[in-house]
């Protein structure tokens, strides 16, 4: 039951790169991924910058080895999940008891919203093929089937913390000896549904977002997928794992369906719980990958909760959403890969476009890329609608 769970590899596709090395290069080069929409068709095309994956569905389908007409969410998922698996060095997937746990928020909505336009004008209209993979779980199964995963398949949807919760559940599956390996993370493609939804909440920035900056006015949406490969102690002994998933916690803010409480109750409880599970003191955390969406509400609540937990010793912190945009259900997975890699390579990621100190906070995010630090422990935060708050802690082997 108290078996350790390790990170044996990771894969990412997002607005700053089609794989992990490309993403790291974008951080080094200070090249964020927000641009005018190229692939999503929306009337808001020229209003809101987004961090799209820089490839059309035909290219992604080719990379994924899947049909072009399936949801972009599944194509992104497949590409990142396969990179994760290959990086682990585990080899033939059929040799292990493997689980695939993937978070997403809107499943195959990119196809459903096309379908709906035809269906609303004629109830017998629209191609059913476009509706076939509407369900969140269906996206996971398309990828599981392509990867050859059958032992345990699950999908989690807790809004923006979905990917992080997938790591927790995956870790428990290993500790309970249900499987030996879990590919865990999340995926989400940009859709008009999400873009318009966030627009009604008036939290989309019309400029590139400025997380943890005093002048921030909202978030930019992104898309992508990110997965880690979690392995049991016994498998880790045969590999060269990146690091350990040493702690995690999930708490609910129980304040409002979409807004965070002013004192960041849920955020604090998630971070505190993750530290407690890992048996660490706050000052042992070397870097925090912030949730840092760039909205007024999130950054102040998250910041106040960090202040409460970490003062007076603040670790290096940054929001990689200043590069990738907010990838929603994928963000917890993508940022888990970045955080695990931070431990492995000693990387501290930059927070783009930070200029003005937030008056509520005594600390500021890091603005330049650097590597080679001695990072023993890294925290990753993911907070979402429904009050869902999750924190993960990654630790150096020892």
């Amino acid at each position, binding site marked *: 039951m108290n078996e350790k769970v390790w990170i044996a590899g990771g894969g990412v596709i997002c607005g700053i790169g089609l794989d992990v090395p490309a993403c790291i290069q974008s951080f080094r080069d200070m090249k964020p991924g927000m641009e005018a929409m190229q692939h999503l068709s929306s009337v808001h095309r020229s209003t809101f910058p987004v961090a799209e994956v820089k490839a059309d569905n035909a290219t992604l389908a080719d990379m994924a080895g899947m049909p072009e007409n399936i949801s972009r969410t599944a194509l992104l998922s497949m590409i990142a999940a396969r990179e994760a698996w290959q990086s682990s060095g585990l080899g033939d997937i059929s040799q292990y008891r493997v689980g695939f746990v993937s978070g997403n928020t809107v499943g195959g909505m990119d196809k459903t919203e096309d379908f709906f336009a035809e269906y609303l004008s004629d109830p017998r209209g629209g191609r059913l093929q476009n509706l076939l993979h509407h369900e969140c779980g269906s996206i996971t199964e398309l990828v599981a089937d392509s990867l050859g995963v059958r032992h345990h398949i699950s999908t989690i949807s*807790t809004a923006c913390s979905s990917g992080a919760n997938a790591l927790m559940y995956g870790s428990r599956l290993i500790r309970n000896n249900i499987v030996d390996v879990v590919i865990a993370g999340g995926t989400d493609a940009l859709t008009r549904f999400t873009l318009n939804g966030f627009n009604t909440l008036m939290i989309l920035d019309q400029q590139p977002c400025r997380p943890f900056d005093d002048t921030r006015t909202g978030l930019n949406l992104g898309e992508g997928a990110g997965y880690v490969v979690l392995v049991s102690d016994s498998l880790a002994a045969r590999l060269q794992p990146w690091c350990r998933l040493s702690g995690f916690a999930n708490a609910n803010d129980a304040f409002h369906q979409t807004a965070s409480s002013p004192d960041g109750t849920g955020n604090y409880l998630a971070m505190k719980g993750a530290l407690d599970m890992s048996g660490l003191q706050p000052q042992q955390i070397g870097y925090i990958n912030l949730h840092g969406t760039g909205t007024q509400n999130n950054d102040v609540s998250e910041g106040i909760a960090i202040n409460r937990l970490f003062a007076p010793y603040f670790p290096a912190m940054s929001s990689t959403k200043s590069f990738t945009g907010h990838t929603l259900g994928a963000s917890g997975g993508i940022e888990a890969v970045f955080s695990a890699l931070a431990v492995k390579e000693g990387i501290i990621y930059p927070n783009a476009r930070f200029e003005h100190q937030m008056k509520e906070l005594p600390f500021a995010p890091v603005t330049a890329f650097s590597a080679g630090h001695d990072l023993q422990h890294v925290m990753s935060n993911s907070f979402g609608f*429904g009050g869902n708050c999750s924190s993960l802690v990654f630790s150096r082997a020892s």
Partner: protein
Amino acid sequence: MQIYINGTGCISPQETAQGGPLLAAPREYEQVRLATVDPDYKQWIDVKQIRRMSRVVKMGVGAANLSLEAAGVTAPDAIITGTAYGCLDDTGVFLTKMVNQQEEMLTPTAFIQSTHNTVAGQIALLLGCNGYNNTFVHRGFSFENALLDAIMILKEGSAQHILAGGVDEITNHSHQLLSRFGLYKKTPVKTMELLNSPSRGTIAGEGAAFFTLGIAKQPGAVAELSGVSTLYKPLWEGEVIGHIMKFLEDNNCTPADIDLIVTGRNGDIDQDEIYEEVADALFPDHAEASFKHLCGEYPTAAAFGVWMANAIIAQQEVPEAAVFFGRTPEKIKKVLIYNHHQGTHHSLVLLTAC
């Protein structure tokens, strides 16, 4: 470690929300779309809020509260839901307006309530529960994954009481669209004739069933949740049978120890075949109860099945409306619920009287 079902709550197309003997007066339908019999939600939710809430949220909150009340628990340590479809009504509303209004002049309410974690989030909000909160959305495994997550967390010792459940709703859009996939009977069949109807297709259902699980037995507990297992896309019947044998073995029992099987037969001749195969191979003389003629088919219908199995253990008898085959033994100690959804998602839940 034992995990007890300390309280249950169910809102379904049957009169399951008001207590009393199980299925004493079963509702008989002759339609392919069943709807929940709604309790008075005002007992749990403020009237102003009720108006804004979609049915799936109301039935989830209602069943959750019934289950907590039965267990005598006011503040669970964790809330875990399973829902395959999520909040279809609000999704449909937002999608329709977005299409019809060409992405202009939209309002946030439907979008906010469209996310799959709305039910779990609302329960947490109404209870003021800051604990662990998770939502599984994996088709015919959504509810089973929620139970498994709860079991793993209870075994870790980080929670005393966990509220776990399954919930799904039907909307006009969803029913129209799922009908186009050919899932339902072409002509309506009477409730008590559904499971023997000689045709393809089933009937659509909806509902919510929640369970307050704990590591300490409360006065209301009648059963332990002994085990949960899922099997994804079995290649043939033999794999299902093997999986069930292994599951029983893992739970230190054999088919002979099972007093009653509860199956997810839905009246579709193709889909029900596997239940016959399993019964013939492992449980040829066992009594069998069924539930989908009562609640309809939906991805989290197994939650109704588990709720019914728990109530059967409480009463120590199978109500006539639920009997599919055989005579139930005098003592009902172990009940195996075997369900599959669309032939691809098979699940097992084992309850043991306590």
